């Protein structure tokens, strides 16, 4: 799976759990929390959706690796390989 695919998977999940957020112009290097109204409960939902939809596991200690879109892609890509 390409980096672009992984990025899109994360964006699709975010737009489902926070339907009021505009996800069209996100900066991949800036933290998602700074750009969107996401709290720790929402990050849990991202993790739960990754598991539910793609059988990808993110242990709790790795949650900080989901901070930006870029770090999401770096961290998740091997798991989708």
């Amino acid at each position, binding site marked *: 799976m390409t980096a672009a695919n992984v990025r899109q998977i994360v964006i699709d999940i975010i737009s489902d*759990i926070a339907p*009021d957020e505009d996800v069209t112009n996100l900066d991949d290097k800036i933290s998602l929390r700074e750009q969107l109204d996401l*709290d720790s*409960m929402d990050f849990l939902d991202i993790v*739960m959706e990754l598991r*539910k939809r793609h059988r990808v596991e993110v242990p*709790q200690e790795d949650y900080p690796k989901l901070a930006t879109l870029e770090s999401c892609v770096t961290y998740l890509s091997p798991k989708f390989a």
Partner: protein
Amino acid sequence: MNYDAIVIGAGMSGLAAGIRLAMFDKKVVILEKHSIPGGLNSYYQRRNFQKGGIRQFDVGLHALTNFIKKGEKAKPFSKLLKQLRLSYDDFKLCPQTYSKILFPGVELKFSNDFELLLSEVSEKFPKEMDQFLSLVEKVKGFNELDLSLGYQSSREVLKSMISDELLIEMLLCPLLIYGSAWEDDMDFAQFVIMFKSLYFEGFSRPQGGVRTIISLMMKKIEELGGEIRFKSPVNSILTRNGRSIGVNVGGEEIFAPVILSSIGYPETCRITPELAEKVSPRVGAMTFLESIFVFDKKIMPSQNDSTIIFYNNQKKYNYRPAAHYFDDSSAVVCFPDNYEIQNQEGEGTVRVTYMANYDQWRNLERVDYDQKKEEVGSSALSLVKKLSPGFDGELLFQDIFSPLTIERYTWHLNGTVYGSIDKTRDGSTPVSGLFIIGTDQGFLGIVGAILSGISLANLHGLMGAEG
């Protein structure tokens, strides 16, 4: 039968916890003793064939606190919507007009725009305005969600900041009666939660009342495949070596590694012998009477246009069990027709809440009980007329529920509405795997209860399950 989690009680917190668990494919069952959902915020109907047939009533809901406008972010209500994947529009929120705190010779109005309360305080208590603004700043900066905080008296904090005692009493009045399990005072963290919920954010009511909220949550659980069993009282919570392993429900044993109990902390102890050996959370003393009146017409805006009146006929606000059955020196009077004033047609409804005394009601003989309820009704009715000068509607129907009614339908010991005075703020108990959600976790109101169910389901049903 084995589950991933068992939720006891299909009230606001239990339904919310069930939704979260079912959303991520956990096998969850909600066990409810009553035949309908809602818990302390349920509904009922009454027939009156002479005058108007069947009418539907809400049990508890005067107001939904934590009002937000569509699109507002990072607020308790917006978190709830996201976590339960419900849409703002589904709640059909009708905002309040305004409400007021009415004491002898002075009133403070507040609405969903905090500016109104600021201007009221500045007009009525000009000398206190600077202190009030510092209180507002303190509330804004306070992290009420820090679960490690100990008890701190709100009165002590307020006295250290505000010199006019009347202003202290008036500010405390709505916050106490809309959520305090403690008499005459409340934990400052609770004060902050309530201050934000009532004064910063404000009131609304879903069109259709509490049923709208309940049916949204029930529909969600059904869609997600969650299981709810009604008329299913949990006889005991089964434990082994300090951890909970399941429940006995109507004679059947079912098992799960996580149990979320929304029935109250003392009530949970009662059915969990191993827990009762380790803790004895005290039953609160605050219980109430509610009178509901239906008139043949609505009160006109010129007679009274406020949504809720927090009434007190003396300078000091006494928040404690009534000395003599019920205390009509103060009341909460809710005018549900004054949410977003719509048409002036149709029947009018008013609800009046008084503080009560559980023990005295418990000890009444049946005939005296009915007579005492009549006394409550006539006192409440004259208050409604006093607060709505010129209103001459004909009374079609009245219903009064007492602390015994609350106890009978919610199984809360002594008819408490705000639960135990010993909260478990993080929901944990000395029995591992068993957690308290809802009222006795201490996050109050419908929004608080729902967030309590969500957060503990997240922590112990979803995140805990990963480790």
